[in-house]
């Protein structure tokens, strides 16, 4: 690293890099689309690499006023271990999705870019995704609530637009519903933010945390913001919009939405509950845990009842997000009223490995649908013999989700179970165990269709190698996460206030 390059430069790079790349890609010629993706992936990877080099030891939080304006007026960026882990996960998953998308949308130089449905995906996926990426990175690094609101709006609009890229009536309806939920969620969030500003006179996360927020008004603000974010995260029972939306988007879009976008709003909930409010034991965290339990059970049951591959994977996201909310009651069960570190690291390790594994699954599912030009489970009959690598990618990703060792999901499950049992939380432990079995059930259901040769599909379109490799790469990463978790869990633990 050359001297003089501070973490502020790298932070700026990971936020502005994809934004600039998105504008380049918006020019819409095959050359600029590719250039934009390369620019976005390159700037984020370099930026995250730089952050890893400059971060470490000492003070875990860095605050860097952008453009010389500090809180409460300007834009604050802050970096801690949690943000770095999320940025890194998003960078790796994002890079794989970007690569996949170049093959999925075909050789774009031959497509009639503006007219056909495929052309619309090819034309607009890259700019939208790069814009989303910039917003996500901004959310991870943002130090104040107003910035978070702005970035959330960008994220929501971009995500809804991704859904409608498929240009089917279904996709349009799903996209509009998503947009509506997203807008209402943002509105609730904005009301909460306004309320908080009235009470505390600042929107900086740091300054708010120092306020020690108490009383009915801050509580109401938290409730508003949480409901808004919960709707955007699609937590049970506010999940109904997610499966149609995630299933309707083109495959790389589904992966972006399911693996990454929902983590953005979840991240904000965590920042609020843990960093800003420091919510302790009580009925509030228990309710969040119960919502998580509902998501795990109901999401899994619905996943088992799906007959469409992508919808099944989307319901799986609903279920897996439940684990993230089960984290809250476990988190406050530490000794002497402190935080339970296992719950924290386990929860985010789950977020991390779910991001990687779910992206692998959606990309693999996309390759299968691409090959047979249909999306129902019976259509992929026997596909394991035609696309073995894709089949393995889906399987490995699914087993990681189910917490089968060795995988990141297993490490996360071990940590969460340990957090639950350390406090005698047998209910939570049994829920986690049952959730793992249900996950296995729906993953195996897909695998069974894929190996069954009795009714092979009639049409088969060759799948570009790049689509197969990128999904496999992510699946292997989700397995590798199970071998070495020391550094990541240390970073995560360091971010706990």
């Amino acid at each position, binding site marked *: 690293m050359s001297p003089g390059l501070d973490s502020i430069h790298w932070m700026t790079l990971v936020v502005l890099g994809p934004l600039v790349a998105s504008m380049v890609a918006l020019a819409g010629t095959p050359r600029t689309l590719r250039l934009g993706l390369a620019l976005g992936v390159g700037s984020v990877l370099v930026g995250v690499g730089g952050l890893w080099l400059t971060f470490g030891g000492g003070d875990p939080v860095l605050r860097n006023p952008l453009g010389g304006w500090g809180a409460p007026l300007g834009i604050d960026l802050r970096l801690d271990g949690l943000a770095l882990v999320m940025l890194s996960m998003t960078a790796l998953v994002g890079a794989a999705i970007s690569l996949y998308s170049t093959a999925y949308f075909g050789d774009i130089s031959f497509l009639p870019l503006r007219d056909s449905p495929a052309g619309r995906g090819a034309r607009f996926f890259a700019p939208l995704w790069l814009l989303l990426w910039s917003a996500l990175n901004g959310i991870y690094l943002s130090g104040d609530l107003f910035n978070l609101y702005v970035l959330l709006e960008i994220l929501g609009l971009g995500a809804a637009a991704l859904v409608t890229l498929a240009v089917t009536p279904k996709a349009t309806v799903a996209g509009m519903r998503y947009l509506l939920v997203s807008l209402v969620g943002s509105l609730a969030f904005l009301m909460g933010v306004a309320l908080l500003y009235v009470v505390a006179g600042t929107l900086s996360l740091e300054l708010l945390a120092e306020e020690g927020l108490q009383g009915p008004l801050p509580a109401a603000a938290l409730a508003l913001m949480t409901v808004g974010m919960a709707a955007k995260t699609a937590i049970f029972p506010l999940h109904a919009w997610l499966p149609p939306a995630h299933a309707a988007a083109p495959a790389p879009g589904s992966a972006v939405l399911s693996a990454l976008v929902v983590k953005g709003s979840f991240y904000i909930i965590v920042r609020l509950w843990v960093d800003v409010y420091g919510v302790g034991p009580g009925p509030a965290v228990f309710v969040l845990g119960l919502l998580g339990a509902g998501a795990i059970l109901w999401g899994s049951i619905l996943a088992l009842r799906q007959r469409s591959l992508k919808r099944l994977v989307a319901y799986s996201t609903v279920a897996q997000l439940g684990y993230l909310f089960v984290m809250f009651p476990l988190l406050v069960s530490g000794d002497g009223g402190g935080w339970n570190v296992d719950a924290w690291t386990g929860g985010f390790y789950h977020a991390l490995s779910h991001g990687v594994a779910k992206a692998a699954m959606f990309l693999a599912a996309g390759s299968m649908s691409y090959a047979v030009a249909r999306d129902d489970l019976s259509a992929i009959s026997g596909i394991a013999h035609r696309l073995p690598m894709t089949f393995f990618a889906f399987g490995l990703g699914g*087993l990681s989700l189910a*917490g*089968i*060792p*060795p995988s990141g999901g*297993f*490490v996360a*499950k*071990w*940590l969460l*179970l*340990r957090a639950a*049992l*350390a406090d005698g939380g047998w209910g939570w*432990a049994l829920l986690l*165990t049952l959730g*793992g*079995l249900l996950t*296995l059930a729906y993953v*195996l259901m897909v695998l069974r269709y894929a190996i069954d*040769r009795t009714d092979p599909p009639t049409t088969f379109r060759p799948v570009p190698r790049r689509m197969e490799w990128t999904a496999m790469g992510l699946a292997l990463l989700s397995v590798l996460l*199970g*071998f*070495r*978790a*020391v550094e990541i*869990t*240390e970073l995560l633990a360091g971010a706990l206030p």
Partner: protein
Amino acid sequence: MTPLVAWEALPLAVVLSSLVPGIGIMLLGEEAQRARITLNLLGAVAKVVLVGFMLQGVGAGASYAWRFTVLPGLEFSLVGDALALLFVTLSAVLWLVTTVYAIGYLEGGENRRRFFSFFSLCVTATTGLAMAGDLFTFVLFYEALTWATYPLVVHRGTPEAIQAGRRYLVYTLVSGTVLVLGAVWFQVETGGVAFQPGGVVDPEAAAAAPGRYLALFLVLLAGASVKAALFPVHGWLPVAMVAPAPVSALLHAVAVVKAGAFALIRLLHSLFGIEVASDIGAAGIVAVLAAVTILYGSIRALNQDDLKRLLAFSTVSQLSYVALGVALLTPTAQIGGLVHLVHQGIMKITLFFCAGLLAHTLGVKKISQMGGVARRMPLTMMAFTVAALGMIGIPPVAGFLSKWYLGVGAMEAGLPWVVGVLLASSLLNAAYFLPVIRTAYLDASPDRWPSEGDARFGRIEADVRLLVPALVVALLALASGVFGGSPWSPLGWAELIVGRGDL
């Protein structure tokens, strides 16, 4: 005596010696037969050689351990100690033999790439869990074994195979999940998961809360007992015998059920310690379950006409000898249990090899079709007879030694009912094995065998790639009994483990 090789990472090399061929074979094409066979055999030979070095080293007092931190407080650890080597040596030697057999049995069939790849992965998981130095690593390989074995069970792709595979998965996955829960609970309760001779549970803590520790034990037992095929969760094993013969050999002798029995050893001795396990009543529960399983399996084996099904119920029964032995407090019984892990493996693999030979060469799968088969295939039936007599417990075949040590140990422990169970089981073994042998030697041959292939093997009765492995393992079964007094025999090694206090 000094260790020839003092390289600490030797256990890792042993695991890699089958992992690398497994992955390599998957990347090779289906038609790359020569490369596949070469890789397979190279890996299998390398594993035996590496294990040989480790045996010599441990015999000379060295220890091998390779550790890698996964999480603060959780390690991925592979340890080559005396107990681990008992199992690893069995797996490594039998894997080499089974590889040769499987090449003869399946090359020429379909999906060989998949088969041989998972075949290697299966042994990788087995050696990994044998050398796991702690519960975390053990669980990791224990679960991996489930997935590595599934494609082998459903290899034929027939509806029965799929059905058997489904049952296998349901049993093993549910139990695996329970095992993970128990493992985490164990860590929370005791603070550590590393295996130690004599156990890691604090006797005072266990005495203070025997109920809680018993519950903890039972959760772990529920996780381990499915693969060990303890009654009443043995149901997957007889069904899984639809798999091809080499797979049955692997399931019954080398890998899956052995992993379950080994899990019971680790649970009783390396985690709780046999004294604590006895005090809280856990060892008694295991002993009773094992005794019931021994009798139940033997009785179910009585009226089977399908040869492989008979052998499967025999496995259910024989495997519980291991559990019974290691659940008793006396060293003699423990030696008997440990050594039966090896003896049962060698004898049972012989029986399955012979069953496969009969099916592959003549199409004979049922006992009612076996009339006079010994005249057509004398060497095969000789091997079968040696192993069957060993199972019954007739000297000088290996099985006799196991039963002798178990019986003496039970008397020392003052448990005459255990001796009664052993005697009853031996009578039942005789009652289901002797009629098979009688039919094969004394009954009249049919005019033609069910599906005798056109292949002629010269003056030899069957494909040598199948016959030689069967004869080799039969000889091993005999030699383990005859040379039981040698320190390098399975019995000698089991005595070394218990004598050194390594259990």
